[in-house]
């Protein structure tokens, strides 16, 4: 691998600056959007039959516990300076620091979403490439039908079907949670319990996301395989395998990498539903619960984390391009 030159560093620097700007916009939107939705945390903290009897002072007092009684601009300033200090405020629902709540959920999301993206990329992308390489054959027809079918199924439905079959009918796997509630066993036993509970949500999420990556990989490789240079490679007498893997797939990887990077945000969204069906303690479920209760500060924090995640994934993809594709490298040098 060639070492990055000065130009390449400039390019990386430019990218990073660009992403920082995107992040600032995202951060501001995170602040604004939850507050634009109708409803306030107080509607959730006090029962409806009582809200009307609450005095303005009492209302103020409840909101003051979370700094939500201050003017919007002041809240925004505190939010921005808080981010720099790593302080995202206190959840109105839980009364706990938002940072702690996010950090508790993050590992579960990384395992579930990270695992699902990896699996979906390997399975969906691999099958997509295979399907394009065997264009016109039975593999392509079946593969396309299967992945289109998976892609069009709602996640909660797949989850429910898997649950009914594996947990209900076969009684093989537990229905809910990430770990057993009575964590008696440690070590290997606990790992096994953890794995048993991860299987179904992971498979569900993978099935849901693989379809899209299949389509991207398939159309990308199919496009490459119809290029002149492939004809040239075949004319040189290279084997089919060399042509497809060495030339076609390598070039077809770029769109797939972009698609995977974009997936990061979407998968966390998709995980919301899956996490609810399987009672999995990830970020998706936290976001869902916080939307319901208009827990602004948790929403801000969670979206911030997501924005950073998506931006990092895209930055990574950007940085991968030149490594994967010499043309991009050459372009940036010019």
């Amino acid at each position, binding site marked *: 691998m060639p070492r990055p030159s000065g130009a390449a560093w400039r390019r990386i620097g430019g990218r990073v600056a660009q992403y920082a700007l995107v992040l600032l916009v995202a951060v501001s939107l995170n602040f604004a959007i939850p507050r634009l*939705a*109708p*409803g*306030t945390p107080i*509607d*959730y*903290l*006090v*029962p*409806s*039959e*009582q*809200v*009307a*009897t*609450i005095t303005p002072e*009492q209302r103020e*007092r*409840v909101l003051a*516990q*979370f700094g939500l009684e201050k003017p919007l601009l002041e809240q925004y300033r505190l939010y921005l300076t808080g981010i720099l200090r790593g302080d995202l405020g*206190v959840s*109105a*629902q*839980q*009364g*706990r620091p938002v940072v702690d*709540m996010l950090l508790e959920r993050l590992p579960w999301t990384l395992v579930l979403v990270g695992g699902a993206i990896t699996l979906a990329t390997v399975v969906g992308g691999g099958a997509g490439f295979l399907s394009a390489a065997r264009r016109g054959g039975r593999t392509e027809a079946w593969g396309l039908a299967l992945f289109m079918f998976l892609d069009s199924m709602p996640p909660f439905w797949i989850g*429910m079907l898997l*649950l*009914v079959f594996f*947990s*209900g009918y076969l*009684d093989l796997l*537990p*229905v*809910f*949670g*990430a770990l057993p*509630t*009575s964590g008696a066993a440690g070590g290997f036993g606990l790992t096994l319990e953890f794995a048993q509970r991860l299987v179904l949500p992971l498979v569900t999420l993978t099935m849901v996301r693989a379809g899209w990556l299949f389509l991207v990989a398939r159309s990308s490789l199919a496009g490459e395989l119809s290029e002149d240079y492939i004809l040239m490679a075949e004319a040189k007498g290279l084997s089919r395998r060399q042509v497809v893997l060495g030339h076609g797939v390598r070039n077809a990887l770029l769109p797939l990498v972009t698609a995977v990077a974009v997936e990061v945000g979407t998968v966390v969204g998709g995980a919301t539903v899956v996490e*609810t*069906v*399987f*009672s999995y*303690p990830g970020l998706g*479920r*936290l976001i869902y*619960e916080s*939307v*319901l*209760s*208009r827990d602004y500060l948790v929403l801000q924090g969670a979206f911030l984390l997501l924005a950073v995640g998506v931006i990092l994934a895209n930055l990574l993809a950007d940085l991968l391009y030149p490594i994967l594709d010499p043309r991009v490298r050459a372009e940036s040098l010019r």
Partner: protein
Amino acid sequence: MVRGALEQSLRPVLVCVLGLLMVVGSSPATGGAQQPQQVERLTIATEADKGNLTPYSFRPPPGIHSELVGLVYDTLFLHPYTEEPIPWLATEASPNADATSWTVTLRDDVTWHDGEEFTAEDVAFTYDYYRDGPPNRYTHHASDVPVVESAEALDATTVEFTCEQPCPTLDLITLADLPILPQHIWEDVEDPQTYTDLPVGTGPYRLTEYVEDQSYRFEANEDYFLGPPTVGEIEMPIVPDPSSMFLALQNGQVDTATRPVPPELQESLGEARDVELVEGKRFASIFYRFNAESPPLDQQEFRRALDMAVDRQELVDTVLLGNGRTGSPSFMHPDSRWFEPQDAAFDPEQAGVILDGAGISDSDGDGIREYEGEPVSLSIIVSANDPLQIRTAELVAQQLGEVGIELLPESLDPGTLSQRQNALDFELSSFQGVPHLIGDPTQMIESLESLLVYSNPEYEGLREEWFQSTSVEQQDETMREIQRLFVEDPPASTLYYPDTTYAYNSSTYDGWIPVEGHGIHHKWSFIPEAPELLGIETVAQRTAPPEEETGGRTTLYAVVVAGAVVLLVLGYFLLRRRSARGSDEDQI
């Protein structure tokens, strides 16, 4: 010879009869009282996170809150939906002549979970804190209806309560509803909503672990003043998805679920191995709030006609598959002691007549009536998370269409829904009646003002009368009179009271008791003395063959035995006669 053959052919019959007699003789026919079952651990799936279970950790439905708070905290009297006050942390309470002041004596054998002694100071502190501090689901019982002016500890076990106005139901409702907080902990709590420690109470269970959105773990309080509870440890995983929840119950991952079983699941769930269903008697209703400030809902006749045009029986049959009761104009739950029995009249024709009389008629023949020149088209806001309520709204829309009123259901996410409900930004709103709302008359008085925004000149007088009532009987009578007003001038339209059927695994625990207003998941299901104190049988006592049934079976046995004896005797005589005749024939 003949005799021998006959004897042979009758022998199997005789053997059968004798065998039957032996079986009957040996079969146990005893019912009798059962010892409370002791269980090491129980897993109860619950549908929603309710915070760290202090009285301040309230969340709106779904899910049970006060029952969970009740595992950790106790009240002075048993619970607010009893017929008569049943002492709990208190031993007795007596009012003065006009019921404005109460002297309450407390138990002296109660300690907090952290070992500190429970005293009258804690009680006095709690009532002051509720009255003056930030609001929660309980506080208005001390700050509004009634206003508990002061709670003073006279000595370690005596508290004197003084109300601003007569408070004859103080022991029956107020003291039975408000959980008592430990002063030594809460005196330092400035912002109760950000208090995140695990709660310390006097209750039968300690909350030892709480993982938000994931689970609760309770351990038995072995020093509980009524003795150790029957279940050593309660695991409570939070399973928001109903299908997952009941699947977990079916495959034995959990022992019971706090969510009532939806009507469509009852049959299949009831057939699962060891899973039993029981009616929990929790108070539940679905009612429509009217925004009486928005025309034509500001017209009493219009609201009444609207109420009359709803076919509640059809709703119960179609939406609840028959598992429920039709709504009453009385608003209260029919099983509440304060409920005034009145039937809702379903009379679309009369509704039409009333509407015509009020000048709301269909003048342009498009099938929709007009009010002041505008077609009567109302929207109803419904929670997008509750398919049952959405189905109901669709059906009601059809029914109102028959009388020329257009109803447009609008489903909203719960956050927007609460906001619009609280801001009175709706025409009609579908609302879930929780026990506190439809079982408690002091809340009713509060609700008529805050939730239902009821204005009726007659009601104003009755309200004043209610506040001046110095006895429970007087208050009860006034409450009934108030409810009678609702027939002519409905503040809301109760559609139905759904059954609250719960499922439990009978092989793991059967000490559940269905308590009026609360369902089966509460501390009383784990306290050995509770069934007797409450006068309610556990599900085990119910399903065990009771005396009467055993009697019935004994009668059956008697009939069988008598039949067998008659058969034997008959057989014997038959044999003898045959043999006698046979010997006669031989002689000839």
